[in-house]
């Protein structure tokens, strides 16, 4: 691997190309600023055996990949694919790649708006924080309030958000504002192992741990008044963000199919560049089975976030009597998915399997997949920050459609290992410091809080500023946390 050419060609201030060499079928395209580009090259040249540049090159070598192997502004090393990586494959001779989705299938963000202003929330903040901490199952070993059988899990995997809605979680109006209306087709529960289903019996409506959260936030700055109005966002408004995924079921599908796709890679003579970069031709039985199982994972995550949205509404109703109908879904979008989509390649529209690993769908104006009220401005791109800084709402653009198959960033990315963070920060201190800044944190684990300390992450403001200036995903609004519930 060391003989690779790591010289990048500058296209413009925000775009760098890794020229096609060796076994690469397409070039690599990095949508990053100069500092990040230099950092990626330095890391690869230093001989680090795990680096994002090599992963972009590995992905560029996969059969049927179209146009470019893409890295976005929050790119960092992942498993097979880089995180912040996008790759689209030709429907006919391309591949389904498990590493292009990852273990937390359809991990994503739901954003809900409320009619409250931050000032109105202030006096009941502690009560709301305590109530949400009570009603939102989070952390290791927590169990959801919906206890399911295998038969019911099969419904979850086919119906997605609708399943939770039918169980009384959330409002019918939510569905229009979820990708795929909260339920993706082509999900056959028979392609999911019994073990995966059993692991999910008590996990619908749970947040998990790690970087997952539920936050009550304030819209503290608007950058694009037109788009903000279309999304129903205004300055000082209180909103709710929920970041979680498909929980144990998704993890088990990822694990199960790693082995199946390793066998398939051998069967179809597909070179394995990295152990987690295994794949199968899209149209092979193995590829079809993976895509079906992965879609079951997508629906599971939809059901999970729908249940949590319902619980958050109930929590606010219990704490301050807020009518559940007044809490509206702004949007829900995943950042670990593979989906069939139509995009223009060399002037011709093609059907592609677009893998987004740690990347949010960012469709520009006009796409029919968007809710009709967002079609004019482009779809919301929900970017999670750290609990001490901010999250952002960006929007898809014509440029993102043209250059990244309609994809944008998903978060800040870590700058410090969990080990270092734990030795540098104490959970209790993190909690106190945030409280001083007006952020109430309710966490089930102090060590977990230390690992997630804001100082352990890259500056999300800088990452967002880069994609805003490049015009790929312009900023619409910034969301500052007021209450954070973590696992």
């Amino acid at each position, binding site marked *: 691997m060391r003989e690779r050419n790591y010289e990048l060609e500058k296209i413009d201030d925000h775009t760098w190309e890794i020229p096609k060499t060796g076994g690469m079928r397409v070039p690599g395209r990095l949508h990053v600023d100069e500092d990040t580009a230099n950092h990626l090259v330095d890391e690869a040249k230093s001989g680090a055996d795990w680096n994002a540049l090599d992963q972009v090159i590995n992905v560029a070598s996969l059969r049927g990949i179209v146009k470019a192997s893409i890295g976005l502004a929050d790119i960092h090393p992942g*498993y097979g694919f880089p995180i912040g990586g996008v790759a689209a494959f030709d429907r006919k001779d391309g591949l389904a790649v498990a590493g292009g989705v*990852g273990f937390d299938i359809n991990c994503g963000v739901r954003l809900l708006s409320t009619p409250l202003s931050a000032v109105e929330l202030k006096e009941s903040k502690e009560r709301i924080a305590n109530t949400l901490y009570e009603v939102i199952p989070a*952390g290791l070993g927590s169990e959801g309030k919906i206890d399911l059988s295998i038969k019911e899990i099969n419904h979850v995997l086919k119906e997605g958000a609708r399943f939770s809605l039918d169980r009384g979680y959330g409002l019918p109006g939510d569905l229009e504002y979820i990708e795929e209306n909260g339920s993706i087709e082509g999900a056959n529960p028979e392609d999911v192992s019994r073990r995966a289903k059993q*692991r999910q019996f008590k996990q619908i409506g749970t947040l998990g741990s790690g970087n997952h959260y539920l936050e009550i936030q304030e819209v503290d700055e608007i950058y694009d008044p037109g788009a903000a109005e279309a999304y129903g966002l205004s300055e000082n408004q209180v909103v709710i963000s929920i970041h979680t995924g498909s929980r144990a079921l998704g993890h088990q599908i990822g694990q199960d199919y790693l082995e199946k796709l390793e066998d398939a890679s051998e069967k179809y003579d597909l070179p394995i560049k990295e152990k987690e970069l295994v794949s199968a031709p899209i149209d092979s039985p193995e590829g079809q089975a993976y895509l079906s199982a992965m879609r079951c994972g997508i629906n599971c995550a939809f059901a999970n976030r729908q249940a949590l949205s319902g619980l958050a509404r109930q929590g606010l109703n219990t704490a301050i009597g807020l009518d559940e109908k007044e809490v509206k879904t702004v949007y829900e979008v995943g950042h670990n998915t593979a989906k069939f989509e139509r995009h223009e390649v060399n002037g011709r529209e093609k059907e592609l399997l677009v893998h987004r690993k740690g990347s949010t769908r960012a469709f520009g104006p006009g796409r029919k997949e968007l809710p009709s009220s967002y079609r004019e401005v482009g779809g919301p791109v929900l970017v999670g920050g750290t609990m001490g800084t901010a999250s952002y709402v960006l929007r898809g653009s014509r440029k993102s459609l043209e250059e990244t198959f309609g994809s944008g960033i998903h978060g800040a990315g870590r700058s410090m*290992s969990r080990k270092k963070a734990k030795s540098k920060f104490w959970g209790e201190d993190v909690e106190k410091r945030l409280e001083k800044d007006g952020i109430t944190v309710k966490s089930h*684990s102090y*060590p977990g809080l230390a690992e997630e300390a804001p100082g352990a992450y890259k500056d999300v403001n800088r990452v967002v500023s880069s994609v805003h200036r490049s015009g790929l995903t312009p900023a619409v609004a910034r969301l500052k946390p007021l209450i954070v519930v973590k696992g």
Partner: protein
Amino acid sequence: MSYRYLDHGADIGLEVQSDTLEGLFAEAGKAVFSVMADLDSIGSRQSVEISLEESDMEKLLYEWLSELVSLSNLQSQIYGRFPELKIEEADSQISLKARARGERINPRVHELGTEVKAVTYQGLEIEEEDNGWQCRFVVDV
């Protein structure tokens, strides 16, 4: 026998050492659960049996740790002891039999850490050294 945490970009890297191969697998199991809880707070009232067969040692380690993560989640238990762990090689197959002892997760009693989503193949390796065995791997959290 010992394990230590490695600096790692986004997740958690672990390095484990032991005099014997069996000890290495047991210690690797402990290392994974140390991410999830303070093992001193975990009792050993409950147990599960695990039996695996693989064609190579690294794959066996991956399967062993993945099975532990999966069972822990399924049973809502955390395991801190792995007595009776046996690894045998025959006819190019390696088999593992073990009992994992632990107890049901109770957030009120146990000091809990971070949930492990999956064990990964990233940088996973086992090496035999002059004075014993060593392995490295990364868990996705």
